[in-house]
C-alpha cells in the first residue's frame, strides 16, 4: 500500500457569522481563494491533481450543485481536475482528507486537494432539510433530538456541571487568544483579499479574549426551553435513557462552537508526487477512521472513532502527542479526555471551535492543519484529530510529522 502524505495546509481566517467580515463573499469565491492560495504557495501544476474533494454541509443555493466543481473552475484549475462535494456533517473537512488519503493509498492517482467550506452567515444551517429531524417515522423511531439537547445528554451522562463546561470554554478562549497573539496560526492562514487586493480579513475574528466564568455565568442555557417546555425534546431523550431523572441543560452560546464562515484545503499526495514536483512532505497520514454511533446522544463518535483509528495504526493513546478534538460543545472534548484519561495539556492546545468558531464543512481540514503546524512548532511527532458528527457518527485521523 502506498503512503499518503500531507504536503501543505491552507485555511481562511474564520469570519464571524453575524456581521462578520467574510459574509460578503460567496461560498464559491472563498473556496476558490483557498484553492488559489494552495496552488500559488506550492507552485502546483493542477493537472497533477486527481480530484478536489470538498466538504460542505448545507448543500443548497450557492453551496449546492456540486460546489466542489464550481470552485475548481472558479480557481482556474486545470479543466481536467474534477470536483467532488461531500457531506459528513461536521467532519466533512476531515472526511475529505480521509477519502483523498485512501484514494492515494489505493493508487487512484498521485495527488488530491481535500478540504471544505461553510458560509454559515449566508447559507443557514439546516436550510437543506433533514429527514431524520422532519420525517416522523424516522424521527420517532430513532429518538431524534437536536444537537444541543444531545450535548446536554452527554453532559448529564458524564455528570459535567455548568461550571465544568464553562471552565472549559474560558480555557479555549484563553488558549486561542494566546495562540493568535503569538502568531501560531499564521503559517496556514491565507489572507483574504478582494479584487483590488484590499484585505478583507487576516486573522480569526470570533475569539472573545475577555471571556470569564462571570461573563459566561450570565448566559441562559440555550436548549432548556426546547427540552423542557416546547416541544419537549427531553421527554424523547428520557425514552432512550430512562436511567436519567432529567437532562441537565448546561450548554449555551458561550460554551458551544461559534457560527462562522471559513474554508480550508490540504494537499495530499504520494511520495512520487513530491519528487516529481519538488515538494517536501510535511507529515504522513498514519490512519483514518469513521464510525456510526447512537444517533440520539449523537456526539459520542470521537470515542469509538479514536479507538478504531488507534487499532488500525497499532498505536495506543499514549503514543499521541497532540489531540484536536472538535469543540462542537464543551462536553465533547471533556468526555473525550475523561474517557481516554488524556490530560488537558495535550488537547486543543491552541483553543478550538468554542473560541474560534466551527465552519461546518471546513473545520476538519482546519484542525488537521492546526495540529500539523503545532507539531512543527513544538518538535513533537504525532497528532490525532477527531470530530463528532450529527446523526451519530465520528471521524478520526492520525498524522505523524515527517
Amino acid at each position, binding site marked *: 500500500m502506498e503512503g499518503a502524505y500531507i504536503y501543505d495546509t491552507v485555511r481562511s481566517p474564520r469570519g464571524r457569522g453575524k456581521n462578520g467580515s467574510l459574509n460578503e463573499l460567496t461560498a464559491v469565491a472563498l473556496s476558490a481563494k483557498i484553492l488559489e492560495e494552495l496552488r500559488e504557495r506550492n507552485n502546483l501544476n493542477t493537472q497533477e491533481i486527481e480530484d478536489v474533494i470538498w466538504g460542505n454541509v448545507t448543500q443548497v443555493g450557492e453551496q449546492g450543485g456540486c460546489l466542489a466543481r464550481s470552485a475548481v473552475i472558479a480557481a482556474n484549475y486545470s479543466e481536467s481536475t474534477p470536483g467532488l462535494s461531500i457531506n459528513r456533517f461536521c467532519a466533512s473537512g476531515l472526511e475529505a482528507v480521509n477519502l483523498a488519503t485512501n484514494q492515494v493509498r489505493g493508487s487512484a492517482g498521485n495527488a488530491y486537494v481535500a478540504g471544505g467550506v461553510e458560509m454559515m452567515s449566508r447559507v443557514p444551517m*439546516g*436550510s437543506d*432539510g433533514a429527514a431524520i*429531524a*422532519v*420525517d*416522523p*417515522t424516522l*424521527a*420517532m423511531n430513532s*429518538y*431524534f*433530538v*437536536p444537537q444541543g439537547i444531545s450535548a446536554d445528554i452527554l453532559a448529564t451522562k458524564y455528570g459535567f456541571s455548568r461550571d465544568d463546561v464553562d471552565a472549559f470554554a474560558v480555557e479555549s478562549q484563553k488558549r486561542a487568544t494566546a495562540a493568535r497573539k503569538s502568531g501560531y496560526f499564521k503559517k496556514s492562514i491565507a489572507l483574504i483579499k478582494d479584487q483590488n487586493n484590499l484585505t478583507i480579513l487576516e486573522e480569526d475574528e470570533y475569539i472573545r479574549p475577555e471571556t470569564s466564568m462571570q461573563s459566561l455565568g450570565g448566559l441562559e442555557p440555550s436548549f432548556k426551553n426546547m427540552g423542557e417546555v*416546547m*416541544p*419537549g*425534546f*427531553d*421527554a*424523547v431523550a*428520557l*425514552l432512550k435513557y*430512562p*436511567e*436519567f*431523572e*432529567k437532562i441537565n441543560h448546561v450548554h449555551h452560546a458561550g460554551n458551544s462552537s461559534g457560527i462562522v464562515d471559513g474554508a480550508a484545503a490540504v494537499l495530499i499526495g504520494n511520495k512520487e508526487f513530491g519528487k516529481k514536483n519538488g515538494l517536501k512532505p510535511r507529515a504522513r497520514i498514519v490512519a483514518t477512521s469513521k464510525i456510526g454511533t447512537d444517533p440520539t446522544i449523537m456526539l459520542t463518535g470521537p470515542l469509538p472513532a479514536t479507538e478504531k483509528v488507534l487499532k488500525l495504526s497499532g498505536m495506543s493513546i499514549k503514543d499521541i502527542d497532540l489531540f484536536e478534538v472538535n469543540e462542537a460543545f464543551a462536553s465533547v472534548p471533556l468526555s473525550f479526555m475523561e474517557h481516554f484519561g488524556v490530560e488537558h495539556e495535550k488537547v486543543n492546545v491552541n483553543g478550538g471551535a468554542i473560541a474560534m468558531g466551527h465552519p461546518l464543512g471546513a473545520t476538519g481540514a482546519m484542525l488537521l492543519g492546526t495540529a500539523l503546524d503545532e507539531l512543527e512548532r513544538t518538535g513533537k511527532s504525532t497528532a490525532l484529530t477527531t470530530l463528532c458528527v450529527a446523526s451519530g457518527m465520528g471521524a478520526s485521523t492520525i498524522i505523524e510529522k515527517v
Partner: protein
Amino acid sequence: MCSDFTKVVDKNNIAVITWNCLDKSMNTMTEGGLRSFQQLVTEALSEKKIKGIIITSGKADFSGGMDLSTLEALKRNSGSDPASKIFEYIMEAHGLLRKIELGKMDDTSQSKPVAFAGGGICAGIGTEIGLACHRRFFSSSKRSKIGLPEILVGLFPGLGGTTRIPRMMGLMGASSVLLEGKLFTSEKAKSIGLVDEVVSEDELIKKATDWILSVSPQELVKPWDQKGFKFPGGAPYHPSGFMSFVGGSALVNGKTKGLYFSAKALLSSVYEGALVDFDSALRIEARWFTKVLMTDTCTNMARTLFLNKSALEKGQKRPSGVNETNLKQISVIGSGMMGSGIAYASILQGLEVLLIDQNMEAAEAGKTKIAMLLSESVKRKKLSEEEKIRLLQKVKPASSLEKISNSDLVIEAVFEDLKLKHNLYQKIEPHLKDSAILASNTSTLPIKKLSEVLADNTRFIGIHFFSPVDRMNLVELIKSEKTNDYALAVALDYTSMIKKTPIVVNDSRGFYANRCIIPYINEGLRMLSEGVEAALIENSAKQIGMPVGPLQLLDELSVSLALNVAKETREALGGKYEETGTESILLEMSKKSRLGRKELAGFYEYDEKGRRLKLWEGLKKIKVQKTSTNITTVSVKNRLAYVQALEAVRAFEENILLSVEEGDVGGILGWGCLIWAGGPFSWLDHVGHENVVVECQGLSDKYGDRFTPPKIIKELASSGGKFYN
C-alpha cells in the same frame, strides 16, 4: 339496498340526502350504508337537472362515526389478504368523498355545490363527509359538537380528515383537532374553520338552500385544487414549517412514549402527504390507515374503549329480570373527599343528595367542597352561575340518619374501619325504605364481611368509586354472594344515571382494581430495595404507558396508608400473610418522615405548594437488601407490566373478575393499565401467550412466584388461543 340514506329532490331541484339509521339511535357508517350513500351521491351528481346537494341527518345528531364492527367484519371476512380489502374499501370511500369535493363525476361536467347541514354530535366519518363538502352549516344548539376523536380510541381520522385538516389549518392548527381528538362547540368549530356557518337548527336546510342557489362555480374549488396552493403554516421543508414538523414528532413521541402507533401513523401520513399532491396524499393516508387497522394494539384499544366500554355503559351487565328503577334521591354518608365527590357526580345528573356527617359543620364543609368543584366548572365555562346555584340546592347537608328514609340509595363513604362501618349500618338499616339499597364505597374491605351485621344483606352492594370522583369514570360494583339482582340493578341504574362506566365483580379483598394496583406499587418498592435506580423505575413505568410511576403513586396515596394496609392485611390473613419485600422500605421512609405528598416529603421532594420537584436525594442512601445484577430497562418494564397483568388474570381465574372485557375497561379507566394495548388482557394477547409463559417463567425463577404464569395463560399458550377470539 340498505336504507340508511334517502334522497329527496325538492322544488329547487336540490337533492337532499338524509342519513337516518332506523335501527340505531345514532347514525354510524356501515359497509352497506356507504354503498347506499355512494349510489345516491352518484345519482345526484349525474342527473342533469339537479342543481346541488344537501347532506343532512334525520336524527338530532349527525353521526357518531364509523361502525367499528363493520371494519372488524371487513377484516375477518377478507380471507388471507385483509389489508388489500381494507385498503380498497378506504380508497373507495376516498373516491366518493373526492367526487363530493369536486362536485362532479368526471372532468367534463360542471361542478355542483354540495352543502353539509348537520348538528348535534358529529364525529369521525360524519365530520369527514362535512370536510369534503363545499360549505358546512352547523346547528347552533348547545349540545352540538363536532370533531375527530378517533385518536382517543387508538385510530386516526382515516377518511380524508388527516389529509384535509392540515391543508385547512396548518400542522399547528390541526394538532388540537387530529392529535387531541377534541369535540368542538359550534362557535369554536367556526372560529377554527371546522364549520363555515353556525345557524339555528330549523334554519339549516334553508340556509344551505340559499347558499346553493347563490354560489358561484369559482367558490366551489377547494384551495388544494387551485394552482399555487401553499400548505398553511409551511410545508415540512419550508423554513416556517420546518420547526413545526420537527417539534411535532418530538411532542407526540414524548407525550405518547412512542406507544401509540396511531399517533405515529397520523403524523407520518400528514408529513408524507404534505410533500405531494392531494390525491397522492389521500392514497398515503389510506396506506397508513390500513396499517393502523391491521395493527392489533390499535384495534384492541378501539375494541376496549369504544365497543366494550359503551356496551357496559348501556347496561350490558344489568340483570334482565328487574324493571328499570327510577332514582330520585340518594344519601351519601361521610362528607369527606370521596363522599362529597360522589354527591357532586350525583347532583350533576339531577339527583337530590342528602349529605350526612356526624355534625352539621362537617356536612356543610362537604357542601363547600362541592361548591368549589362547581365554581371550577363555571370558571371553565362549562356551567353558568345560575346552573351552579340550582345544582348546589340539590345538596342537603344533614347530621341525622332519620332523613334517609326517602332515599332510593344510601352510599356509605366513611373511614375504612370495619367496626365503624358495622356500627353505622346497624343504625342505618331501620330507616331504609323497602325499595332502597345500601352500598359501601369501600376500596378494600370484603362486602360479605361488611354486610354481616345487617338483617337483610341481600340489598347490600359495594359501589367503589375512584379518586378523584369528578374525574375518574370507573365504578367497581361488588356483589357479595348474598347481594341480589335487584340491588345490582339499582346500582347499575345509578352508575348509568351519573354517567360512569360500571364493571361488576365478585367479592374479595381489594376486589379487582386495588388488587392489581398494589402489586404494581410493591414491585416498584422491591426494585428500589434491590438497588434499581429510582429514575429507571419511574421512567420505565411511564414507558409501559402507566400515567404515574409506582413511587409517585405511593407518594400520592401516602406511605402511612400503605403501611396500614399491610398491617390490616397481615392481621386479617394471620399466618397466611406473606412478606412482600417492601416492608423495610416503607418503614425506612416512615422513620425518615417521608410519608408522601401531603407531608411535602416522600419518594419525591416537593415545594411548599406540593409541587413535585425531583426524586428525593436520600433514596440513593437507602439500604439495599440485595443488589440485582443485569438490570435492563426491558426487565424493569416487564416486571412492572406483568405484575399487574398477571394479577388481573388471577382475578379472572378466581372468578372475582367476571369477564376479560370488564378487566380491560376497568384496567384502563381504573388505573390507566396498558391503555395503548387495550388493557391488560388485550396486552397479553398482543404479546402472545407462548411469549408470556417464557418471559414470566424467567421472571418467576429470578424474582418469585408472583410471576409464575397462571394456568389459563399456559392453556392459551399450548392451544394457541387468545382471551379474545
